[in-house]
C-alpha cells in the first residue's frame, strides 16, 4: 500500500517537473519575467506598467518586473542576450539607445542577439523654452543662438534628445549643449532658468507642458497633445528623432511563441480606451511589428554613427 502511494506520489511529482517542457502550445504557463533597462521611475517602465493589467487579461499570466539599470540599457540587453529563449524572459528596451550602444560598442552584443517583438510607443523629441522666454519660435531660437552663447539642455548623453541637438548643431546653429541625468533634471533646469532651451521627449514631459513653450517637434507629423507646434520638417529642418519603446526577447525565440506575443500585443493595443490612456501619459501608441522595428534600428545606425562622430570631434575641440 505504502509503496503504491509512493509510486503515485513520485509519478505525480515527476509529471510536474516534466510537464512544462512537453508542450508550449499553451504559452505562457507561468509568470513572464520583464527586464527593464531603466529605473522604476522611467518611461521604459511606465510603458509596460500601462498595459500590465491588459497583459494579464490577454495572456492569463502576470509580468514580473526586474530592473537592470545601467550603461544606457546595456546591462539589461546583456542579461537578455544570456537568457533562455523560451518566451519567459522579455525586455522593455529603447532605440536609439540600442543603436548607439551598438555603434560605440559599449554593449557586449550584436543586433542579431535579440528577437524584436514589437514597437509599442514612440515619443518624439521636441525643443522647448520657458513659458516667459522672449524666444517664440524656432526662428527666434536660431537668431538668439547665432548672436550669442545659448545654452541648450538635453536629457541624456547620446540619447534621442542629444542626437537631435547634435543634428541641429551640425546644421550650423551654434549653441552649447549640456546633458542632464534624466528627464526630471533636464525639465527642472529648463524651468529654473539654468538652461536657455532644452530638447525633451514628449512622454515624460507631458505633465509639465503647461510650464513651457514648445518650439518645434522632431517628428513627421504634429503631436495631438500640442497641435499648434510645427514640426522641424515644416520649418525646413530635416530633423526626426524619437524614442522608440519596444518589446524584445533573446534570439531564436520559438516562432509560435513570437507569433503569440505579437498577436497578443496587437490585441492589447487595438483597444481604443488603452490608446487614449497611453496618449494621456504622453506615450502615444505607435505600433510596429518585429521586422519593421528591426529595420528601423538598422536604418537609424548610419545617421547616428555620423552624429556620434560629430559629437566626439566637438568634445575634442572643447578641450
Amino acid at each position, binding site marked *: 500500500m505504502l509503496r503504491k502511494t509512493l509510486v503515485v506520489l513520485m509519478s505525480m511529482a515527476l509529471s510536474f517537473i516534466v510537464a512544462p517542457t512537453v508542450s508550449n502550445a499553451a504559452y505562457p504557463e507561468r509568470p513572464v519575467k520583464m527586464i527593464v533597462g531603466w*529605473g522604476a*521611475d522611467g518611461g521604459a517602465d511606465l510603458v509596460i506598467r500601462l498595459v500590465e493589467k491588459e497583459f494579464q487579461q490577454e495572456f492569463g499570466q502576470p509580468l514580473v518586473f526586474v530592473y537592470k539599470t545601467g550603461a544606457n540599457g546595456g546591462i539589461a540587453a546583456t542579461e537578455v542576450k544570456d537568457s533562455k529563449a523560451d518566451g519567459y524572459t522579455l525586455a522593455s528596451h529603447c532605440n536609439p539607445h540600442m543603436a548607439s550602444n551598438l555603434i560605440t560598442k559599449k554593449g557586449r552584443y550584436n543586433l542579431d542577439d535579440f528577437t524584436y517583438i514589437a514597437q509599442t510607443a514612440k515619443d518624439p523629441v521636441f525643443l522647448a523654452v520657458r513659458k516667459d522666454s522672449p524666444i517664440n519660435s524656432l526662428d527666434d531660437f536660431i537668431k538668439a543662438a547665432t548672436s550669442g552663447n545659448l*545654452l541648450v539642455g538635453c536629457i541624456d548623453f547620446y540619447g534621442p534628445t542629444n542626437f537631435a541637438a547634435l543634428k541641429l548643431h551640425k546644421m550650423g546653429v551654434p549653441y*552649447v549643449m549640456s546633458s542632464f541625468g534624466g528627464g526630471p533634471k533636464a525639465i527642472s533646469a529648463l524651468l529654473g532658468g539654468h538652461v536657455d532651451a532644452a530638447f525633451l521627449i514628449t512622454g515624460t514631459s507631458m505633465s509639465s507642458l503647461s510650464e513651457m513653450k514648445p518650439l518645434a517637434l522632431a517628428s513627421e507629423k504634429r503631436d495631438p497633445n500640442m497641435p499648434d507646434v510645427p514640426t522641424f520638417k515644416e520649418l525646413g529642418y530635416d530633423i526626426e528623432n524619437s524614442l522608440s519603446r519596444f518589446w524584445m526577447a533573446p534570439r531564436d525565440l520559438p516562432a509560435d511563441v513570437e507569433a503569440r506575443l505579437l498577436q497578443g500585443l496587437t490585441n492589447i493595443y487595438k483597444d481604443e480606451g488603452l490608446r487614449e490612456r497611453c496618449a494621456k501619459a504622453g506615450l502615444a501608441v505607435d505600433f510596429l511589428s518585429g521586422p519593421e522595428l528591426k529595420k528601423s534600428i538598422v536604418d537609424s545606425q548610419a545617421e547616428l554613427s555620423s552624429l556620434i562622430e560629430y559629437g566626439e570631434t566637438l568634445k575634442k575641440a572643447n578641450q
Partner: protein
Amino acid sequence: METDVLQLFVAGIFNALTPYNLVIMVIGLAFGIIGGMLPGIAVVTAIALFLPFTFTMPPATALIALGAVYSGATYGGADASILINTPGQPSSVMTALDGYTMTLRGEAEDALYAALLASAFGGIIGTLVLLAFFKPLANVALKFGSESFFWMAIFGLSTLVAMYPGKVLKTVLAGIVGIGISCVGMDFAGGEPRLTFGYYPLVRGFDLVVLMVGLFSISQMLKVIEESEDYIAQYDRRPGAFRRAWRALLGHKWVLSVVSVGGTFIGTLPGAGGTVASIIAYNEAKRWDKDPDRFGKGAIDGVMIPEAANNACVGGALVPLLALGIPGSASAAVMIGGLLAQGIAPGPSMFSQNAGIVYTFIASLCIANVAMVPVGYLIAKVCARILDVPKAVIVPSVITLSCLGAYAMRGSMMDVFVVLAAGGLAYLFLKVDLPPVAVALGVVLGPIIEENMITTISRAQASSLMDLFVWSPLSLVFIFLTAFSLALPVWMDWKHHKARPEGERIPRKFSPANLYRLDSLMIMAITLVCAILLYETITNVENPDSRLFPSLVFGSGIVLGLLVLAFTLCEPHKASSTSPLQRHKHWVIFQTFCMALAGCALVEFLGFYTSMFLTMAVMLLHNTFIEKQKPFSWKRILKIAAVTFIVIGVQYLAFDKIIAVYPPSGLFI
C-alpha cells in the same frame, strides 16, 4: 484663496476618512513599514511593489495607498537601525548613531517610539508645508541649478570634519574612500565604463543600498560576535516608554519643527532626498546644540531629528510633482506612474481638473502619519522581540537576509559578494577608527558632487566658470556655510588644545614599530589602492570630463593617506594588547565570514535558498558544538534544523511569494 484651500483640505479629510480608504491606508502603512525595515528593499521598491494592487482601486484610494506605503517605508528604516544597527534605508543611517547606542543601554523601546513619533511629526509638518506653500516652494526649488547642488553636497560633506572630533583626518579619509567607491562604473559625463578593469558587471557601479547593507549590517553582525554576551542587548521592559517618547517629542518640538521644514525643502530638490536631508539635519542640530558631545552617545533627539527630517521629505518630494509635474524623487516618479495608469495627468493641471483627488490625497497624508503611530507601535513592539533572540541565531539570520536583500536590489550575484566584501572591509575600518558612516556619506554625496560639477562646467561654456561656481547668490550662501562648517571645529579644537595644561600634551616622535599596527597597514593599503586607481584613471579613461573627478578624489586620497600615515607612525608606541580571548574571537569572526562567502559561492550550484539554509545551519552548528562545546545530541541538531528552516522559510515566502524576486536556482531552489 486661503479659505478655498482650507475648504478643499477639510473636504479632503472627510473624503479620505471612509472605512475602505482607512483599511487600505493601514495595509499600505504596514506593507511600507515592513518593506522599509528589510535591508535591500528601498522606499522606491516598496512603492513599485505595491503599485499593481492599486490599479483596481478608485484613483483617490490608489493615491492614498501609495502615499501610505511611501510614508511607512520612509519611517520603517528606523526600526532596523535602532534594533540591530542595520539601516533599513539609506536615510536611516544617522538614526543608528544614537538609536543603537540607546538599544545597547537597554532603552530600545524609548528609541523606537521616539523615532516613530518624530517620523509622524515630520511627516505631518511636511504635508502642511506642502499644502500651504507648494507653489512658492516649487519656485525656490527651481532656483537650484547644478552649481547650487554641487555646493550643497560639498556642504553636506563638510560635516565630515565635525563628525568625530579628534579624528578629523581619518574621518575625511574614510569619506574619500566612499567617494572613490562611487566613481566605479559607467560615468555620468562620457558614459564610459570607468575603473572596471574589464569586468563587465562593474559597469553599473556599486549600488548605494547594497553598500549600506554591507557597511552597516554585515559589519555589525561581525562585531556582535566579538561581544561575550549571548544577546545583542538587554531588553528592559520598562513601563512608560511611549509616554517618555511623547514627552521627548514635546520637549524638542521646536528643533524638530525646524528640521522638518528644512527636510521638506530638501525633499523638493530633485535628486537630493531623505538621505541628504537626514544627514544635514543631524549634523546641523549637533552643531547648534549647547552640548554637541551628547550626540552619538544615545541622545533621544539624535534619533528624532533625522527621522523627522526624512519623513518631512515625503511632503517635499510631492511639491514639484504637484506644482510642476516633475518628480522630486524616484519614489514620486513611481507615483506618477500610478497616476497615469489611472488616467490622471500629474502636474499643475491636476488642480483644475482633479482638485478633489489632490486635496483628498494631501489630507490623507496627514491622516496616514497619524495612523502610522498605532500601526508602527504594534510593529515596533513585535520587532523589539528580536532582542530576546540569542545573537547566535540573529547573526546568521541577518547575514542571509542581507545577502538576499543585496540580490533583490538589482538581481545581481555580484552584489551578494559586494555586500560581504563591504561588510568585511567596514569591520576592519571600525577596528582602526575609520568610521563607516563617513564612507557612506561619501558614497551618497560623491555622485551628486561629480554630476553637478560636470554639468556646471559644461554649462559654463556659455558663460563663465567663476560666475556660475562662485558669484551666483545660492553658491555664495553655500560657500559661506561650508567655510563656517569647516572653520568651527578647527577653532573649537584649537581652543580645546590651548586650554589643556602643557604637561598633558603628548610629544610626537617617529616609532617604526608602529608600522606593523593594523591601522598603519590599512592606511598604507588605502593609499596604495588610491595610487593604483589614480594610475588607472589617468591611463585608461579617455574622456577628460570623466577623468577629472576621480583624479581629484584619488589624488587627495593619496595625500591624505600619507598624512594620516605620518601621524599614525608618530603616535607613541603601545605594545599589542590583544588578549588570547580577543584573538580567539577574531578567529571566529574570520570563520563566520568565510562560511558566508562559501555559502554565496555555492549559490549557482545549489540554488539560493538551499545555500543560505546550509550557511545558516553550519553557522549554528559551529556555534553550538565548537564554540559553546555543547555535547552532541540529536535533539540539538533537530532544533538547529527547525530554527534554520523557519528563518529561511520566512525569507523564501517574503521574497518569492510577496516581493516576487527570484534569486538563481541550481539543483534546488
